[in-house]
């Protein structure tokens, strides 16, 4: 249950890009959350709602894009999705695979309702 800390981290990052004066304009915060990130989207959504409620950013909400786990085979180069827990290449059977997607936990962008904002 560390989604509360993650939610605080998200708000902290958004604060660096959108100053308090513009806080009321923040709407969707686009997130990329991998299946292997250990974060439960519903729980993160709930925690974020709870922590912004008492701040000037209370109009903000999370728009979470779930990223499926994908691997690349080190032997044959094939890229494949891992939908059951087995990190083995389906083509050549090699276990020498590296994770290329699925561990993301990123703030991608924020949408502002009215006035323009500029990144620092």
């Amino acid at each position, binding site marked *: 249950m560390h989604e509360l800390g993650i939610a605080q*981290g998200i708000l902290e990052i*958004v604060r660096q890009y959108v100053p308090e004066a513009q806080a009321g304009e923040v709407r969707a915060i686009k997130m990329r959350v991998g299946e292997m990130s250990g974060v439960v989207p519903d729980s993160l959504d709930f925690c974020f709602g709870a922590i912004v409620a008492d701040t000037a950013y209370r109009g903000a909400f999370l728009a979470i894009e779930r990223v499926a786990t994908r691997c690349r085979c080190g032997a044959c180069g094939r890229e494949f999705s891992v939908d059951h827990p087995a990190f*083995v290449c389906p083509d050549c059977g090699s276990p020498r695979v590296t994770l290329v997607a699925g561990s993301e936990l990123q703030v991608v962008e924020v949408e502002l309702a009215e006035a323009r904002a500029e990144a620092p």
Partner: protein
Amino acid sequence: MSVVTIERKVLEKNDTIAAQNRARFAQHRLFVFNIVSSPGAGKTSLLERTIEHLKGRLRMAVVEGDVQTDFDAQRVARYGVPVVQIVTHGGCHLEARLVQDALASFDLAAVDLLVIENVGNLVCPANYDLGEALKVVALSTTEGDDQPLKYPGMFRNASVLVINKIDLLPYVNCDVATIRRHALQINPALTVFETSCTTLAGIPAWGEWLAAQVAAARA
């Protein structure tokens, strides 16, 4: 509607501090591992047996992470090993900042092997780098042989698997070969040990492997 591009990792602050910890460990040529498991798998018992095995050969220090109490630190302190207890007060994992603060209590120049015992939890600690050289996941035979498939993130991020409480195999519905097969399916690069902290089976092999890691870090 306008859009502000951000593209930042939420855990980047933790990662930055973890990198600082790692640089400090490298400066002192210290071998550091982060041991993780579910609650009650025997992390602290394994540490006690490890301390006994390496006594007089390596200078160890331990950071203990728990949600409440300093019971584990008291156990380790009885062996005369420098130990700091981090109490997370509900936090489900250790973060790099907590470890950085704990390091202030040690003379790192007088340590060869630093062990960070994480909070008992097979989920969250997988994603928090503390600056360690590698993660060791301990799994006890009483937990069942399907744990690696249930917690793939942890087994994928670990380098070593210690299958503990093998003395209980006659009494539990668990097959070590199945644990190995499931774990290697998630992470074929895992180094696997089988131990019992009661009979001491497997403790010498594990201890000697650790001693070799420490020697490599010193070289």
